[in-house]
Structures are given as structure tokens and as C-alpha cells.
């Protein structure tokens, strides 16, 4: 596509993308680090992550302001409109991802004070999978790769499986050893949070698809797990 | 109105009227076209009739005489005076050139001796023309005592006769033999052979005219002589001899002049001589240079427009140098400087009014103010020019203002916007852009002034002026006034002269307007 005649408009739009990319980077590292803090039982790291969340929140507020400004002053149209709109939506997802990562970090601080649970590997695997999803979707955004975005969108299923198995495992531990209940509850929530992060990545993928094609991804996502399958109802 | 039925009824109503409306359309268009064609027909008639009237005036019949410039008559008492000396000139001026020319003429018709006939003979040209010969001698003293040929225009009546404007002519050459019967009492009788008789009767008989003074003239010519038939008896015709015959008989030719002698200014005898001279190649037709090289004259054949032309040019110069700068300056002031006040409104209304004031009123102004009040000379190009300048001034102002107005205000804003002063803006942007328009308007105004007559009548430019004016204060006349004066002369010959003068004036104006149009085309700018 050609350049905008009014360069500053083009610059402002690029600025939005850059902001999203930076926020995405921050959120991505927070997710990875928060999982590490759980596994490594590292309260210091956790504290740091909690602090970092403020930055993402600020960035999101800032971006929202910029978007409103852009709507008011530039009246973006067509692809510009979609891009602006997408930036707004993605930033909200990223902000939520940051929040969820922070929540994981908070719980990891609680966990690190309690006894260790033998589910580190499951959390680690799930954390990696989620981080990968996030990374992929952010790459797709940076390069406007629809295919990559669609890949992320379809592979959310994998994360859901991780979650289901972790959930069952944790329930087993809790029943086996009531002392672990408190810790396992936190881990439950951590797993839930990771699953939510995966959902947000899928949302971002949908938005990317919309920016590039102007169409929405079909509503009926090919999710395989059903509500009754596991002991846990699927959050949507 | 969304109702379909209603829509259809509307459609029908529209359709129903269409035919009528289209017919009205055609009619209206036809009116417009007719109006234009009518106006153009008027123009064509005007130009056509003038051109037709003027056409004869551009050629002139001239008579070329062999003159013997005998010094004793051409320059009596010249003695040894050197050519160019005052004495020489005085001597030449004493010369009797008219007599010399009469002699030359007489040589052509040695048979004619009667005084009255001779007067008629010399009436073939105007005696004033002899001064031309004198001038030639003054210019070229070596002509003295030599034989020379001198060409002068024939008189207006002869000229008109030769151009066929006086009478219808029937010529029958070799009509048959004729014999002079007796010629004792001035009246003669001719014996005509049957062929000639037939010819005469066929010319005269059809209309059944007689041979009286109110009838067409039938002239029989043979043997260098000519006689007008006054009656027919068998094969003998009574005749009045116009030119004596050199022999008693000969193969005759007939000349029938349809207009009776009494109704024309040229006599039968003059016609016969003219015919003779023309046959001899003495009277020839040439381009009428007199029209352009002569000044006004009492004799139509000698009258020319030179004086009026120079007068017009001088007058126009005065007009131009007064009206154009003042007009342009005024326009500049009003358009670019003057604040909109009552005062400028007054000037503006005033100028618009002046433009529509009848021109004759300017004449009255000139008469009352320039001539009576300031005591300036009458009939002078200076005064004429000033009066016309005042008359042209509003035209120049209005067209200059229009040209200035046509320069879009954005140009002024642009110049002012970059910090040019009012005067810089006007003189370096507005005026140059308006200049073609101003020039065009000025030229058109001057062309109008050139054709203006009425105000000049008021200031005495109507006087007869026989000299070419040299200065702005010399008495002079101008082209349109010249035309007016000529047109009012009763002799028919003036009609053609004034028409010819009109052609000259129109050509002048066409040239001016063409320049204006060219300027407009060349520099026209559309915003």
C-alpha cells in the first residue's frame, strides 16, 4: 500500500503498531517470567513482575487515549480504521494478559512460602505452550500474517488439553493430601489464568484476521473439548 | 406522489403538451435568426450600396494633351532668369497655361471655330487643372520651350458620361453609308442608305420617339464629323451638325443617347468630341489618384481627401494624447485608490453619464468654452481634438476600468499579501495585466472619435479648406465632415466622391479596429 500523503498520520498509525508490539513484548515476558517464578519458587521475580504490570496498564491507557485522539483528529477509514480499531482491541487483550500474569506472580509468591507441589512440569509445559501461542500471535500481528494468526486460532485446543490434565492432576493431589489444598487452589487458578491467556491470544488472532481481511473469523471455532468431558466447565 | 396512477397521469399530462411546446420552440428560434438576418441584410445593403456608389470614383477618365510650352506664353519675360530664382518663378506664374492647354485642345479639333462651341469644347475639362501644368514647369524648368504631354482629369460630367451614369448609349458601327446632302444654313441633311435607315428606325422606331429636343439623340458619325438627326423624310434625314465633316460621305456609325439632351449637363457635341477623343486614345481611364493626393476642391473631379485625412490624423493625435493618459489615470484612481465615498460615487455616476451624453453637446461645450471663452482658433485640429478627447474620455475610462476590474482581486491580495504597497501592486501587477484591455478600449474609443462629425460641425470644422493642414492650429477639416459636406453638394458627381471618401474612412476604422481585435486576441487572458 502507498504512503499516506499526510506523513504524520502515517506516523501516528505506525506509532500505534509499535506501541502494541512493545506492550506485546512486555506481556509476553511477564507470562514467561511468571511461570518461571512459579516453577523456580522465586518471590523476587514475582515481585518484579507485579511491578511490571503497571507499565502495561499505563501503556494500554496511553494507547486508548491515542486511539480516541486518532478517531477525533484523523477520522481513519478503511484499512486505517480497521488497524486503529484492532490496536484498541489487542491492547485490551494484552492488558488482560498482563493482569493474568501478575496474578500468577502474586500466587507464585504465596506458593513459594508453602510446600512445593509436584506439578511443576505440567505448569512449565503449559506455560511454554501459552508463551509460544502469544509469541506467534504477536509475530503474526507484526507482519500482518493471516495464516499464522489462523494457526494460533486453531491450536488453542492444545492449551485447553494442558489445562484439563493439570486440573485433574491437581484435584487428585488435593484429595490425596488436604494440606496441599491451599497451594493446589492457587495452582488451579494459575492454570486457569494460563488458559485465559491462551484465550486472549486467540482473540488477538481473530483481530489480526479482521485487520487484514476486513472479515470476521467464523464464530464456530473448532474446539474439541466439551463441557461434560472433564470435571471442569469450560470458560468461554 | 408515489401513487403509480398519479405518476402515469403526470406523464400523460407532460406528453400531451410536448408537441405544442416544441412548435413554440421552433418559432422562437426562427424569430431570433430572422432578427439577425434582417440586421445583416441591412448591413449588406448599407455596405453594398455605398460600395456601388463609390466604385466609379476610384477610377477617373483623363485627357492627355500635347502641350507646346512656348516660353513666351509659358513664362513671359523670363529672360535669363535662372531656374529656381524668384524672378523665374514670377515669370512662370505669369504664364497662361490655361491658354496653352486650350491651344492643345483646339489642335485636336481644328474644324471647330465657333466661340460657343469652343467654350463647350474647353468644358471637357476644368480649367483649374492647368495649375498642375504650371507646377510641373516650376518643378522642372527644362520643360520650357518643349513639347510635352499633360494629363488632366476630364470634367465630372464627361467622367460620368464615360462611366455610363448619364445616359444609355446604343452604338451601331458600320451601319451603312451616309452622304452629306446640303449644308448651307448650318442645318444639314443627310442621305442615308437603306441599311443605315433601318438601323436608325430600329433604334428609334420601337419606342416611336421623334427627334425633338425632348427625345433621345440619334447621332450619325462619319468622316470625322457628326450630326444629330432632327427629322426623317424618306431616305433623307434633317440633321444638326455637331462636328463638321471632313468629307461628303462615308461609312457611318450610329450613336443613340437615350436621355434627351435637355435632361443632361453634357451636350451632344461634347459627347461626340469625347467619343472622338476616346477613340483617338486621348481620353483614357486610369486609377483615380486625385482622390488621394488632392485636397478639397469646388470641382468634384479634382476633390481629394488628403486634407481631411491629415486633419483627421492631427485631430486624433490630440485626442489620443489627451484622452488616453487622463482616462487611464482616472480609471486607476477610481478603481484602485479611491475610497468608496460620496465623492467617488459622484465621479462615477458623472463619468457614466458623460459616456451617454450626445456628442453634439460636446460640440456645444467646445464652442462655448474653447472658442468663445478661451478664444482658441476655429476649425483647428487642436480644438477638434480636445472636444473629441473630452467625448472619448468616458469611453477610455470605462473600458480601462472594466479592464482593471477584470484583473481578479486575488492578484491584488497576493501582491499586498507579500508586502507590496498599493502603488507597487497597481503598477507592477494590475496595470500590466489590464494593459491589453485598456489599449483595446482606447483604440475603439479613438476609432469612434475618428468617425464623429456632429461636435466638429459646432466648432467650425465644416469650413472649406483647400490646403493640407501642417500644424495643430491650422484650419482643417476631418474625414467625416468632408463626407458630410460632399454628400450635401447637389452635383451628382459628389455622390460617388463622398461614397469613396466613406470607403477610405471605413478602411481606416477597420484598420484601427483590427488592431484592437488583434490586441485582444493576442493578450486575452481568461481567469
Amino acid at each position: 500500500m502507498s504512503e499516506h500523503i499526510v506523513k504524520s498520520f502515517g506516523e501516528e498509525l505506525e506509532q500505534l503498531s509499535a506501541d502494541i508490539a512493545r506492550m506485546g513484548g512486555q506481556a509476553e515476558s511477564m507470562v514467561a517470567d511468571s511461570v518461571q517464578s512459579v516453577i523456580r519458587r522465586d518471590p523476587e521475580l514475582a515481585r518484579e513482575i507485579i511491578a511490571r504490570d503497571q507499565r502495561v496498564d499505563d501503556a494500554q491507557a496511553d494507547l486508548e487515549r491515542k486511539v480516541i485522539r486518532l478517531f477525533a483528529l484523523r477520522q481513519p477509514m478503511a484499512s486505517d480504521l480497521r488497524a486503529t480499531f484492532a490496536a484498541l482491541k489487542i491492547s485490551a487483550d494484552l492488558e488482560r494478559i498482563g493482569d493474568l500474569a501478575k496474578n500468577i506472580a502474586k500466587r507464585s509468591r504465596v506458593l513459594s512460602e508453602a510446600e512445593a507441589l509436584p506439578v511443576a512440569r505440567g505448569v512449565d509445559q503449559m506455560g511454554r505452550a501459552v508463551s509460544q501461542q502469544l509469541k506467534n500471535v504477536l509475530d503474526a500481528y507484526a507482519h500482518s500474517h493471516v495464516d499464522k494468526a489462523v494457526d494460533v486460532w486453531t491450536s488453542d485446543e492444545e492449551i485447553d488439553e494442558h489445562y484439563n490434565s493439570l486440573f485433574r492432576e491437581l484435584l487428585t493431589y488435593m484429595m490425596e493430601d488436604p494440606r496441599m489444598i491451599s497451594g493446589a487452589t492457587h495452582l488451579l487458578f494459575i492454570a486457569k489464568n494460563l488458559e485465559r491467556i491462551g484465550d486472549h491470544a486467540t482473540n488477538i488472532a481473530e483481530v489480526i484476521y479482521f485487520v487484514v481481511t476486513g472479515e470476521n473469523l467464523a464464530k464456530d471455532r473448532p474446539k474439541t473439548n466439551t463441557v461434560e468431558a472433564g470435571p471442569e466447565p469450560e470458560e468461554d | 406522489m408515489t401513487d403509480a396512477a398519479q405518476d402515469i397521469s403526470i406523464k400523460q399530462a407532460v406528453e400531451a403538451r410536448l408537441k405544442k411546446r416544441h412548435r413554440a420552440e421552433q418559432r422562437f428560434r426562427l424569430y431570433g435568426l430572422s432578427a439577425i438576418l434582417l440586421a445583416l441584410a441591412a448591413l449588406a445593403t448599407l455596405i453594398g450600396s455605398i460600395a456601388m456608389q463609390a466604385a466609379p470614383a476610384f477610377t477617373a477618365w483623363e485627357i492627355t494633351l500635347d502641350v507646346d510650352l512656348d516660353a513666351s506664353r509659358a513664362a513671359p519675360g523670363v529672360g535669363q532668369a535662372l531656374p529656381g530664382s524668384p524672378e523665374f518663378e514670377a515669370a512662370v506664374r505669369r504664364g497662361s497655361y490655361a491658354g496653352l492647354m486650350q491651344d492643345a485642345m483646339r489642335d485636336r479639333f481644328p474644324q471647330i471655330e465657333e466661340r460657343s462651341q469652343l467654350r463647350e469644347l474647353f468644358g471637357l475639362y476644368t480649367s483649374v487643372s492647368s495649375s498642375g501644368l504650371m507646377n510641373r514647369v516650376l518643378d522642372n524648368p527644362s520643360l520650357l520651350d518643349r513639347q510635352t504631354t499633360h494629363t488632366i482629369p476630364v470634367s465630372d460630367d464627361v467622367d460620368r458620361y464615360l462611366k455610363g451614369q448619364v445616359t444609355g448609349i446604343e452604338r451601331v458601327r458600320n451601319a451603312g453609308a451616309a452622304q452629306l446632302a446640303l449644308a448651307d444654313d448650318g442645318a444639314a441633311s443627310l442621305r442615308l442608305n437603306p441599311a443605315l435607315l433601318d438601323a436608325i428606325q430600329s433604334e428609334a422606331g420601337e419606342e416611336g420617339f421623334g427627334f425633338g429636343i425632348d427625345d433621345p439623340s440619334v447621332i450619325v458619325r462619319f468622316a470625322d464629323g457628326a450630326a444629330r438627326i432632327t427629322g426623317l423624310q424618306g431616305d433623307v434625314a434633317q440633321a444638326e451638325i455637331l462636328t463638321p465633316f471632313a468629307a461628303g460621305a462615308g461609312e457611318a456609325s450610329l450613336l443613340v443617347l437615350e436621355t434627351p439632351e435637355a435632361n443632361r449637363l453634357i451636350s451632344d457635341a461634347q459627347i461626340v468630341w469625347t467619343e472622338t477623343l476616346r477613340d483617338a486614345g486621348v481620353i483614357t481611364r486610369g486609377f483615380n489618384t486625385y482622390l488621394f493626393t488632392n485636397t478639397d476642391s469646388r470641382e468634384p473631379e479634382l476633390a481629394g481627401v488628403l486634407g481631411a485625412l491629415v486633419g483627421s490624423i492631427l485631430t486624433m493625435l490630440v485626442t489620443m494624447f489627451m484622452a488616453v493618459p487622463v482616462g487611464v489615470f482616472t480609471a486607476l484612481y477610481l478603481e484602485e485608490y479611491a475610497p468608496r465615498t460620496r465623492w467617488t460615487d459622484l465621479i462615477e455616476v458623472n463619468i457614466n453619464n458623460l459616456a451617454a451624453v450626445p456628442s453634439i453637446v460636446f460640440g456645444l461645450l467646445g464652442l462655448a468654452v474653447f472658442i468663445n471663452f478661451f478664444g482658441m482658433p476655429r476649425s483647428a485640429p487642436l480644438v477638434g481634438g480636445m472636444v473629441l478627447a473630452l467625448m472619448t474620455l468616458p469611453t477610455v475610462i470605462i473600458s480601462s476600468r472594466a479592464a482593471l476590474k477584470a484583473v481578479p482581486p486575488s492578484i491584488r491580495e497576493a501582491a499586498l499579501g507579500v508586502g507590496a504597497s498599493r502603488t507597487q501592486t497597481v503598477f507592477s501587477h494590475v496595470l500590466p495585466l489590464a494593459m491589453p484591455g485598456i489599449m483595446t478600449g482606447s483604440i475603439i474609443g479613438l476609432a469612434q472619435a475618428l468617425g464623429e462629425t456632429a461636435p466638429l460641425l459646432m466648432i467650425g470644422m465644416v469650413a472649406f479648406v483647400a490646403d493640407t493642414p501642417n500644424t495643430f492650429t491650422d484650419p482643417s477639416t476631418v474625414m467625416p465632415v468632408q463626407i458630410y459636406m460632399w454628400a450635401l453638394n447637389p452635383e451628382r458627381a459628389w455622390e460617388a466622391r463622398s461614397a469613396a471618401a466613406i470607403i477610405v474612412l471605413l478602411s481606416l476604422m477597420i484598420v484601427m479596429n483590427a488592431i484592437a481585435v488583434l490586441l485582444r486576441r493576442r493578450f486575452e487572458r481568461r481567469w
Partner: protein
Amino acid sequence: MSVSHIVALILLVATAAAYYRGRERAMTVAGGAPSRLHSMPSYSGYYVAILTGLPAFALLMLYAVFGTPLIDMAAMQSLPANVASAPPEQIELFMRDARALAFGEQPSRTSALHMDMADRIAGLTRIATWVVALLTLAIAGAGLYLGQSQVSTTLRARNRVETVVKGVLLLSSVIAILTTLGIVLSLLFESLRFFSAVSPIEFLFGLQWSPQIALREDQVGQSGAFGAIPLFAGTFLITAIAMTVAVPIGLYAAIYLSEYATRTQRKVFKPLLEILAGIPTVVYGFFALLTVGPFIRAICEAAGFGVPTQSALAAGLVMGIMIIPFVSSLSDDVINAVPQSLRDGAYAMGATKSETIRQVVFPAALPGIVGAVLLAVSRAIGETMIVVMAAGQAAKLTGNPFESVTTITVQIVTLLTGDQEFDSPKTLAAFALGLVLFIVTLCLNVIALRVVQKYREKYD
């Protein structure tokens, strides 16, 4: 070449030099950077040139205009009493001869007194010329000095030069006013003299016009008859005929040209019509006199009644032809000024072309057209040459177009051409007629211009 001419030439050169001097000076003052100056260097040049040339030239002009009368006046101080008490005309004649003698021209008569006066005039003139020449040069020099000494970075040369320019322009625009003033005053002045001899009532309402009678003073009824009604009637008759010809043809022609004609038609027809406007009136007069008049007479004779060659009809017809382009081009302007958007509006409503013109364009243009017609009437009334040549001289009160009539303008021309005594009522009557003519056309013009102006404002 006289002293005055030489001085004028010197002055011209000095002015040009002053311009360069001023510019140079400004450049020096600015040290080569003109942006430091208040005004560009050339303005300093103009400023110095104006100071140098303007007052000096003004002095020369004054001398040229008033020099001779002043010298005459001075010379006349020494006239012997018996001569000085002579009537003014004789003194004038005397002075004219003396002046002719003084400047080496041919006097009408000479005498010792004349020679004496001539010497005096010549002497005074020589002195005056030299004084003026020196004074002029001195003023120019002073101007040059003053001007260049004023040149500085802060000199508002541009503003001053522009003030002078503006002054010159203003003076020019005053001339137009002076012209009107001149017309009004001269007409009024002479008319008043006329009205002191002939009562205005008689003039305006009298039915008899025969000014020719009053040629000799001892004649009975020396004042003649100055009832102008027949002239007004003749003027009106001819104008009416002219407008009957010109208005419909002119209007329809304008409509056709502006609305129907193709570009080529317009290119051909419009200039042709303009030719009609450019033809001098004397040519129309000629045409009326020698073509139209005889033609009408011929037709009438063929129809069985005799009419004179000079008739109101001939003059009116030809005047009508003359006015066609006037009406058509004014109407054309007016019609073209109607915005295209109005036409588009009507076309888009489904109006045919003629409906558009008659119902939208024409009403919109009507005020302008009325103005144009009024101007045309004013023009017809004031037209002189055609009627002089083709309408005749007979001051008849008639409505018959085949008769010869006379008009105001014809009478003005008749009364004022040929030999005239400037104070006979006959001559002065022309000015009274001129005054009437002026007032009538003025009224028409004012109304017409007002109407047209209102119209223009509407579509500007």
C-alpha cells in the same frame, strides 16, 4: 530653439540624473544591503527626481499658460490714456498686432504706437524668459540638493512617491468632473442669455419654430418664433420609429446569439453586428439620404402618393439600424450575465430552450434590458448626423412618418453652422436646445444606469 525649450530639456536631463543620484545615494547609505532601507533604492531615486523636476516643471507650465497675459498686462500699464480707454475689442486687436510685430509675424496693421508696444513686449518677454529659466533651474537644483540630503535608511521615500502618484491620478479624475461642469455651465450660461430674450414658456410650449426670420435687426418680428414643440415632436417621432426597428431586432438578435447560435455562428454574426456599431453616423446619414430616402420615395410613388426624399421614416429606419447593435450588444451582455446555473436549473426542470429564455433568462435580465433600451433611446434622441442629413428641416408638427420633420439636434446644427452672430437669439437658441437635450438624456441615463447597476449587483 527658444530658451524655454532649452530649459525644459535641461530639466528633463536633470530629472533623469536626479533619479540615478537618488538611487545611488540610497545604495551607499544602505551599504549595499537594500533590505536595511525603509524603501527600495529606486524609490529614493524617484523621490529625488520628483523633488527636482516637479516644482520646476510646474513653474514652466505656469509661465507657459499665464506668461503672455501677465506680460501683456505689464506692457499695457504704459498705454496712453486715450488708447487705454478704447473699447476692449480694439485694445485686444491692438495688442494682437503688437504681439505679432514683437515676434516677427505679419501684423494686420502697424503704427508707431504698435512698434512701441512691440518693443516693450519683446523686452519684457526676454526678461521674463530669462528670469523664469534661472528660477526654474534654481528650484530644480534646490530640489536635487534637498532630495539627496534627505536620503537615509529611514526615509519613507516609497510612501512619499506614492503620495505624489496618487495626487496625479486624483487630478486626472477631476477632469471628468470639470467636463460635466463645463457642459452644464456653458449650456446654462448661454441659455440664460437666450431666455432673457425669449421666454422659457414660449420656448418650451410654443408651436411655431422659425428662427430664420431674425436675421436683420430692423426686421419685423426680429425675435422670430422659438416654439420648440415641433422639434420635440419630430425628435420623438424619429426616436419612436428607430426604437420600433431596433428593439425587437436587437433583442431577438441578442437572444439568438447568446442562447441559440453555435460557436461558429456566434463567431461570424457577432463581429458583423459590431461592424454595424462601428460605422460612423455620417455614413448612416449618407445611406439614409442617398439610398433609403429615394427608395422610400420610389415605393410611395409606385403606390401612388408623393413624399419627399427626406422623411422621418427614412431617418428613423436608418437610425433604427444603427441602434440595433447597441441594443443587441448591451442585451447580450445582460443576458450573458444571467448565471448559467439559472439556465441549468430550468433545463433540468425539463424546460425547453425557449421556455428557459422567456420564463427564466429574460425576466432575470429584464432590468438590464430596460436599462439598455433606455440608453438606446437616449442615444437616438441625441443622434445628429442621420437626422441632419435625412430628416429634413421643416419644423412641422406631424405624426406622419412620410413627411419631413426636424429635430432638436438638426436645429442645433442648422443654427450654429454658417455665419453667426454670437449674441443673436438664433444662435443662443441652439444652446437652449442643447440644454434641453442634455437634461433629457441625462435623466434617461441616470435612470438607465441606476437600473443596470441594480441588476449587476444582483448577479455579482
